[in-house]
């Protein structure tokens, strides 16, 4: 066992971080918000060229790098940290599993069992395909977004425009050989990786601000109350990061979908908590500034909420983990 990143993995991580720092800094983030025209996907071709969507494809296929989920979660941590808007996860899944051509974008929604509230898809008009995953039968269908009835909604995250699907969904073309459950689990894991990125950014943003902002004659980061907020942010992030990476490594080592589902449920739960609570704590560290549109902190929190609502949610994950415990308890008796 050696759970450290390999040199190649570090190179992949740093390469992507460098690309994103140069191409999607605070200014580009702002620009992407103000021109949030529905057809524009910031950085899409650069991300596709960098292999974000195709790194898990076999080398003989278009853009394929022949890498695994372990590398994918590292890459998704980076795009999550940079707050690059989506639909990143669905596009990766469609590229890897449904041969979506490079530079195209895909959406994914679970048509059964329906979640609570409306069925939402991000950037519907921009998508080249929409995958419908039936996690009960395991069937996956592909639908042309133009055939779906939907209305535009104002999403909470200014960088994630949402469409609400209306009426019965059209039946699409079946994609034989694809397992909706596997897609759902992998999608949950990649989303968890995005959340780890958001959580890491929240810690870093809070620490920088706490070191600069002065009150009562010293940087607020010198106050124990602020230090403890920041320490707790890190203490939520690191176990989540370890859980996400471990689940991916187990998947690459051949874990079954059922085993991966349990590992992913834990990873997604902890990553959601690390990101959502971390972004809130980061906002709190920023005080009144954190409540303004000008500070970028609210974008972290809103994105964390979007990811929290994507793929496996807390109720689904905790029930799955409880079932697993229960099965272990029966085996134990």
């Amino acid at each position, binding site marked *: 066992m050696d759970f450290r990143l390999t040199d190649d993995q570090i190179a992949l991580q740093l390469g992507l971080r460098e690309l994103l720092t140069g191409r999607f800094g605070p200014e580009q983030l702002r620009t992407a918000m103000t021109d949030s025209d529905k057809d524009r996907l910031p950085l899409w071709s650069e991300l596709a060229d960098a292999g974000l969507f195709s790194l898990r494809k076999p080398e003989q296929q278009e853009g394929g790098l022949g890498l695994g989920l372990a590398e994918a979660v590292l890459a998704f941590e980076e795009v999550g940290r940079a707050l690059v808007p989506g639909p990143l996860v669905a596009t990766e899944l469609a590229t890897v599993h449904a041969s979506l051509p490079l530079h195209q974008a895909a959406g994914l929604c679970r048509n059964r069992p329906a979640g609570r509230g409306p069925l939402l898809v991000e950037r519907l008009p921009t998508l080249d395909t929409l995958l419908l995953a039936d996690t009960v039968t395991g069937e996956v269908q592909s639908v042309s977004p133009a055939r779906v009835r939907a209305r535009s909604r104002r999403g909470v995250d200014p960088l994630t425009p949402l469409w609400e699907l209306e009426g019965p969904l059209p039946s699409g073309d079946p994609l034989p050989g694809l397992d909706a459950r596997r897609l759902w689990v992998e999608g949950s894991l990649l989303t968890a990786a995005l959340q780890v990125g958001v959580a890491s950014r929240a810690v870093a943003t809070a620490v920088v601000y706490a070191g600069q902002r002065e009150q009562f004659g010293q940087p607020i980061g010198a106050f*124990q109350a602020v230090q403890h907020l920041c320490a707790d942010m890190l203490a939520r992030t690191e*176990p989540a990061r370890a859980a996400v990476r471990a689940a991916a490594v187990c998947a690459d080592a051949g874990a079954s979908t059922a085993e991966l589902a349990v590992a992913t449920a834990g990873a997604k739960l902890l990553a959601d908590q690390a990101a959502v609570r971390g972004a809130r704590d980061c906002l709190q560290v920023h005080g009144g500034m954190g409540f303004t549109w000008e500070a970028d902190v609210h974008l972290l929190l809103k994105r964390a909420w979007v990811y929290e609502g994507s793929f496996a949610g807390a109720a689904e994950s905790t*029930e799955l983990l409880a079932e697993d415990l229960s099965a272990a308890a029966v085996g134990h008796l």
Partner: protein
Amino acid sequence: MDLQDTPAEAAFRRGLRDWLGKVLPDLPPPPDPLDWPARRAYDTAWQRRLYDAGYAGVHWPREVGGQGATPAEYLIFLEETERAGAPYVGANFVGLLHAGPTIAAEGTAEQRRRWLPGILSGAEVWCQGFSEPGAGSDLAALRTRAVRDGDDYVVSGSKLWTSHAEVADWCELLVRTDPAAPRHRGISWLVLPMDAPGVTVRPLRTLMGTAEFAELFLDEVRVPVANRVGAENDGWRVTMVTLSFERGTAFAGEVVACRRALVELAGLARRNGVWEADPGLRRSLGLLAARFGALWRLVQWNVSEAQGGGVPGPGASVFKLCFSEARQELYDLAAAVLGSGALVLADGEGDDWTAQRLQGLSYTIAAGTSQIQRNIVAQRVLGLPKPGRA
């Protein structure tokens, strides 16, 4: 990144599993937790069996009597012994996990020869004389004084929370050797023989009602200068080495124990009907399973980083903080599963969840309070400014 056993690790795991399968069935029943001499005998006998089988000091270097196993193999050792229900280090805790590694890292050749074999074979038991009435987590406030007199130090003062003091042969003792120096300087790390004239041990009754710890009174106790580990007045640095071992890996085996306890709790909840009746509780158990699972992964990660023989870094505080809190929540959930049963202590065989819950109250205090761990994470890991230094 990989989590699979290498061929060598797999062979180590198989050998250990086989051995545990052979020895555990004829292990005597555990002693009464109130009977300290019985506990000492039980724990040291187990240590002796490990020693005879070549599993003592698994991850200690060969040149100090260990087995020279890699950190990853040490994790396998903790995982397998815990999973098989083997006894934990118990009375050997301080020797194996604090004093031993410290002497191995900082002691002279003579000191290693004198003390390490007794620790490894279970012949000698150690206790920890760090905390004082005025110096708990603020260890640098310690006042016990050691004045040089020829080849001896003359030590006077008192220590608190000294676990196993009643049955210990040796004490890792922190003393102030230079009262004029700044707080973190002027401290030395001594090995105190517990039978030296002037040492008084007074048991301390905890909220469990048991004598878990003791107070230690030192009245002009003569300790040879040769018993000092590290340079005079350099004890703080030596201590930081000890504590980083404690926060880094000393609790790793207990993560496995907590995961096992969680499965037992799920079984209990199923048997008493709470599992079906209380979805909130069921989900809380699921969430806790996620947390212990992630903490085990964090241990594997930290150990991988330390592979190559380093000292665990300050990131270990993140683990200590998360683990002690998760562990307390485990016992609070146990109380929710037991209902009114949580108000009585078990009077026979089986798990005593209520006793564990009471014992667990110490986890966020011992080995540095959670608040101190947060300070360490904030200042040393995240680099936030120290308080009051505008």
